[in-house]
């Protein structure tokens, strides 16, 4: 891959730094981060998984929500580059999916079948703590992440971790748990809301997500809050409920 533009990198860091100041919702924040990272390194897809604090990783956000892609994230509860990066606190870079069936017998073939050729995973870490992983997929096996790219993506992952860990707070550990658990549940609500909209508006599940996200952005709503209203009281959301 070509070296990333300095200006774009700077913009991502400013956006992440803004988050540290504002009150924010994890799912929204991670979704934006996935989009920016994908743009930055010209990746086909980027996703983020967080620990459920019970030894597993759960999918939280992605640059796109193709069904096949979500399955790949979900699979990494059991095996895959994210789980490796999470457990070892070390990045997994430039893994060629055609030669990775020995390492990830279920993940590698499924990822290849979904059209991906390369995969990378970066731990979300702060000192001794690892709270998740950032997953980068590429469709071109020849386009490797160069050394500078690797440093930049890891730096993004690390800054994101600081945002999530609320480093400055004395109640850091409690807040982390409160936020992580809220985010995990928020993600479930988003899936339920995708189903509701898919049926109510007669849309595919991916389109339903796009509609919901666009609506949240237009009306300056948090995605998790909007999803909750969609599931509990769809009629009260003008413009989303079918007239």
């Amino acid at each position: 891959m070509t070296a990333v533009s300095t200006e774009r990198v700077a913009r991502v860091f400013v956006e992440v730094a803004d988050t540290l100041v504002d009150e924010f919702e994890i799912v929204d924040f991670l979704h934006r981060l996935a989009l920016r990272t994908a743009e930055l390194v010209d990746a086909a897809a980027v996703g983020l998984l967080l620990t459920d604090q019970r030894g597993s990783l759960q999918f939280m956000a992605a640059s796109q929500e193709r069904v096949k892609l979500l399955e790949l994230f979900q699979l990494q509860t059991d095996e895959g580059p994210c789980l490796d990066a999470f457990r070892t606190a070390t990045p997994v870079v430039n893994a060629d999916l055609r030669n990775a069936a020995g390492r990830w017998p279920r993940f590698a073939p499924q990822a290849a079948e979904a059209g991906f050729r390369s995969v990378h995973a970066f731990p979300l870490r702060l000192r001794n703590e690892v709270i998740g992983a950032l997953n980068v997929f590429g469709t071109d096996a020849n386009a490797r992440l160069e050394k500078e790219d690797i440093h930049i993506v890891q730096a993004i992952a690390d800054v994101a971790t600081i945002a999530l860990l609320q480093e400055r707070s004395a109640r850091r550990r409690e807040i982390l748990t409160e936020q992580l658990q809220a985010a995990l549940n928020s993600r479930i609500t988003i899936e339920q809301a995708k189903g509701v909209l898919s049926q109510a508006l007669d849309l595919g599940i991916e389109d339903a997500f796009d509609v919901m996200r666009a609506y949240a952005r237009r009306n300056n709503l948090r995605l998790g809050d909007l999803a909750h209203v969609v599931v509990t009281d769809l009629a009260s959301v003008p413009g989303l409920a079918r007239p």
Partner: protein
Amino acid sequence: MAGEEARVARVRAKVAQQPAAPGAAGDVAGLLRRVCVVAAADLRAFGVGTHVLSKGGVHGFSVASNLVGQQIEDLQVTIGEGASTEALSSRRPVLQPDLVGDDAARWPIYSAAIHDYGVRAVFAFPLQVGAILLGVFDVFRAAPGMLSEDELAQALTFAEVAVMTLLDGHDASADGLAEAMAHRTVVFQAQGMVMVQLGVSPEVALVRLRARAYADGRPLTEVAQDVLSRRLRFDKRYP
């Protein structure tokens, strides 16, 4: 079996070994109380309680591992502030490892009241599945301090078992529930679709999906997949 499923199975086995109160062997409140008793022992807690929200004309209720736990649970409802009240309204865990320290001012009446019972730390976990909110699971400890990493994982597992127990109360067939709870996106998406197809709550939609899987002898995820691909549609007229 994944780690979490094994943990859930272990907790359920322990709960099954607990003696049931006379006449309350199979009812939801009796089962929940046994979950609280096991949790109190495993989490070195002073008391563990669960408050279940009222739903569809059924009154809410509280159960606890012991008498003091029960008194505190009832107190929380009366006072209207505190960790479990906040966990329910914010829909996220509320962890307060030191009721006496700097954070005592968070809930002045509540903190003073439960301090009188000897409680120094409280951890409240909402019982929820996405937009479904069923109640709250409270751990009270006599010593200040945060739950250890392992205790936190256990507490989350106990809360999950409490959720399963409550959902089972709607429907006798327990099969497939652990699977449904394993954060399978297809199940949650199908749940949303079935809600609209039948005009029902998310709880009922999940019950219907499970009942269908049970009747067909198929995994819940497979039935959910059929709903998503529009091969299966639930109909209001034929329950």
